[in-house]
């Protein structure tokens, strides 16, 4: 098996995810509407596709599981069984198993080794099948049942001196492409004579609708030994059994002495080969790369822009010889327009709908609600809002956390809700919409809201504030306490939230992608978390500042304001310089000390860039301001990933590199 399947893994993963997502959606739908056969059909189709895909890739556990799912779904389609809650639950379990298998493929290039026997057993139970019979999956395929027509042919053949053989072939379990292997075997056999019967049918074999064994009846001039020898040369066959069929008498009864069953020597060597391929898969760089599916129109647009770029390049080449200033500036204007459009187009290519994150929530909410005995209606809107691919990867965990919070802490148990005159069913609204250069995501529940007193008590208990401080806190300040490290208000430690990961993690995660989070809450009405994240992380607005002769960039999103401070106003309090600004103390950071540049000659007026990290502020002293500019963020690479105070670099118009300051680590 030299076939390299690695190159297809990316595609496989991408597609499998899409299909699984689809399955998840339909399953949720089916749970609500279990009599809808259309939905059963849809799941069947998806399971079938996944079976085919995973079979081709050699992910046999996945293929087997989907195959069994298909059986159940088929029975449901033909009304042999009815879909009830139990069936849906088991189907969900199957989905989870498939999902985790795909995840393990992403991580290591291999499916999970669990063959899901217990799940398959459950599926059989639904069908009331005799489990012991099929569980080992190794029961020999039934001997060919011959119909009259085949018997007739065999009879005629023997009259003409031809031999008829029933050949049972078992492929080795490690065989990657079963149908391809079977095809090779069929081809070989057909070169000796004629195949008049096959079980399963040729179509099924082509579709990989067989486990490992199949049998055929071959009419040939050759002797048994010859046929055996030829077949023996094909790799990945576990065993071959050849029976001679005589005069149309049913072969199943053929005596044992006619039986030649030989374990193939080649099995071992082919196993070895397979080990190699397995190793290869493991050796792949470990993780499956990130891919983005792009609308072809967007790519076409990109291509058009690039061709325009080439046109303007030749035009500028022509112009560079002449000294025609007017034409030159016209060309530059044109170039500017193209680059802006190109920038836009590339951004769009990187954009994916936020649906990718949202679509895992219905299932999560369903499971949580079941677990907590709460009734919850999840309403989602704005799934089509597009954000940068990198944002998508980062925003998932914080959202999961917030939704869990809403369900666990926010929404009351049904009886409590009735007492407050609310409907039994709680509502969680997940909303997303674009707002200028940002995307807003809201998580809103109609639960009990934030209990300010409880938060205060907890904060005192945790030593985050003192009792005296707590008395003076406004509601907004209390809400901020929620984001303090190590804060959690739930009385019970549940599996859902309160595992030590608090809202502070959510906040820092969102801030790490230059986003912000706000909370609005009203007692007994509900709580709303509002997250704002930038559309893209690759290009940002930044302020360029100068320190000595070096230029650094500060992301505009973390700058509050820029001001001048008289150096005489700076006070030194226990080694920390501060200045009183707008009635508040502002810590001062002298960037030249941190970044090791020459200090500027002492000057009365200092330029201070006030930056923020969450609620904290600090004043950065810089030598000079150069202005605001759109910059493209470049990574400093792995080698320099550990360097403090830097989050990346950017290339300036003159080709020089300027470093981007990491404000989060500075404050």
């Amino acid at each position: 098996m030299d076939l390299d399947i690695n190159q297809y893994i990316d595609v496989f993963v991408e597609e499998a995810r899409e299909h699984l997502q689809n399955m998840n959606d339909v399953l949720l739908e089916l749970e609500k509407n279990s009599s809808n056969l259309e939905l059963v059909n849809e799941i069947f189709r998806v399971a079938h596709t996944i079976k085919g895909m995973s079979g081709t890739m050699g992910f046999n556990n996945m293929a087997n599981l989907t195959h069994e799912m298909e059986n159940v779904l088929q029975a449901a389609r033909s009304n042999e069984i009815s879909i009830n809650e139990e069936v849906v639950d088991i189907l969900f379990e199957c989905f989870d198993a498939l999902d985790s298998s795909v995840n393990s493929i992403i991580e290591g290039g291999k499916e999970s080794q669990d063959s899901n026997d217990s799940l398959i057993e459950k599926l059989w139970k639904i069908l009331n099948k005799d489990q012991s019979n099929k569980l080992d999956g190794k029961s020999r395929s039934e001997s060919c049942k011959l119909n009259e027509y085949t018997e007739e042919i065999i009879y005629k053949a023997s009259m003409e001196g031809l031999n008829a053989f029933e050949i049972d072939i078992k492929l080795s379990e490690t065989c990657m492409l079963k149908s391809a292997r079977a095809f090779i075997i069929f081809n070989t056999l057909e070169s000796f004579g004629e195949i008049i019967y096959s079980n399963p049918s040729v179509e099924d074999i082509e579709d990989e609708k067989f486990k490992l064994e199949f049998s055929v009846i071959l009419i040939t001039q050759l002797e048994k030994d010859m046929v055996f020898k030829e077949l023996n040369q094909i790799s990945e066959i576990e065993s071959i059994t050849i029976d001679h069929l005589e005069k149309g008498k049913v072969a199943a009864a053929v005596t044992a002495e006619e039986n030649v069953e030989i374990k193939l020597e080649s099995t071992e060597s082919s196993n070895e080969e397979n080990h190699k391929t397995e190793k290869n898969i493991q050796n792949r760089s470990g993780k499956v790369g990130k891919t983005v599916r792009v609308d072809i129109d967007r790519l076409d647009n990109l291509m058009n822009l690039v061709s325009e770029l080439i046109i303007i390049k030749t035009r500028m080449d022509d112009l560079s010889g002449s000294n025609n200033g007017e034409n030159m500036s016209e060309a530059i204007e044109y170039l500017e327009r193209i680059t802006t459009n190109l920038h836009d187009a590339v951004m769009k290519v990187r954009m994916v709908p936020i649906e990718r994150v949202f679509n895992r929530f219905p299932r999560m909410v369903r499971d949580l609600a079941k677990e907590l005995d709460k009734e919850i209606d999840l309403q989602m809107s704005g799934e089509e809002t597009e954000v940068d691919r990198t944002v998508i990867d980062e925003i998932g965990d914080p959202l999961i956390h917030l939704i869990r919070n809403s369900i666990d802490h926010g929404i009351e148990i049904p009886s409590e809700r009735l007492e407050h005159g609310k409907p039994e069913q709680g509502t969680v609204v997940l909303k997303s919409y674009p707002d200028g250069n940002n995307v807003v995501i809201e998580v809103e529940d109609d639960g009990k809201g934030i209990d300010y007193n409880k938060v205060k008590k907890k904060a005192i208990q945790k030593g985050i504030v003192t009792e005296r401080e707590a008395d003076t806190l406004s509601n907004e300040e209390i809400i901020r306490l929620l984001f303090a490290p190590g804060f959690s208000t739930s009385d019970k430690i549940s599996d859902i939230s309160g595992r030590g990961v608090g809202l502070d993690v959510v906040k820092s995660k969102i801030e790490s992608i230059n986003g912000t989070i706000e909370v609005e809450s009203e007692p007994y009405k509900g709580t709303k978390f509002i997250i704002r994240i930038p559309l893209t992380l690759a290009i940002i607005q930044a302020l360029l500042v100068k320190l000595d002769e070096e230029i650094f960039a500060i992301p505009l999103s973390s700058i509050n304001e820029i001001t001048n401070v008289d150096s005489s106003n700076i006070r030194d309090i226990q080694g920390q310089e501060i200045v009183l600004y707008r009635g508040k103390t502002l810590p001062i950071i002298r960037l030249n000390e941190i970044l090791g540049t020459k200090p500027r000659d002492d000057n009365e007026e200092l330029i201070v860039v006030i930056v923020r990290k969450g609620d904290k502020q600090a004043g950065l002293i810089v030598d000079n301001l150069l202005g605001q500019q759109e910059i493209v963020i470049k990574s400093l690479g792995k080698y320099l990933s550990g360097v403090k105070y830097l989050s990346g670099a950017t290339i300036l118009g003159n080709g020089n590199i300027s470093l981007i300051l990491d404000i989060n680590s500075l404050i």
Partner: protein
Amino acid sequence: MHSEIDNKYVIFKLNKEYYGVPINQVISIERMQKFTRIPNGPHYVKGVINLRGEVIPIIDLRDKLNMEIKEVDNNSRIIIVSNEDIVAGLIVDSSSEVLEISRENVDKPPNTAENDYMEYIYGIGKSDEKLIILLDLSRILEY
């Protein structure tokens, strides 16, 4: 075919000695250019350069190997090398040629670990009368 490429080394000079790195790990050889200093970075990282739109860290090989530091001059070159997914530039005194050194002609480095830099060396190659110190890039590019 494979062995041919495997046995080829880009040879450069550092402090009068000849050094070599496998040619399949060399991306390009560049002239000295302007760096952007990396504050708080390792002392042997001179800075970063813009190499055709990519930000590449530059390591002063003399500094990294604990040799006496020398001002760059007209002969100084930057050898851009890669190891796994790290790309970096190495400042060398001068680069000379590409040599083929067959495996039989590569000896293990002497075991007398007098000098720190032995750990960065994976073998000593012989070509004609020259001795060439072969560097282990995976160690040099460790971060």
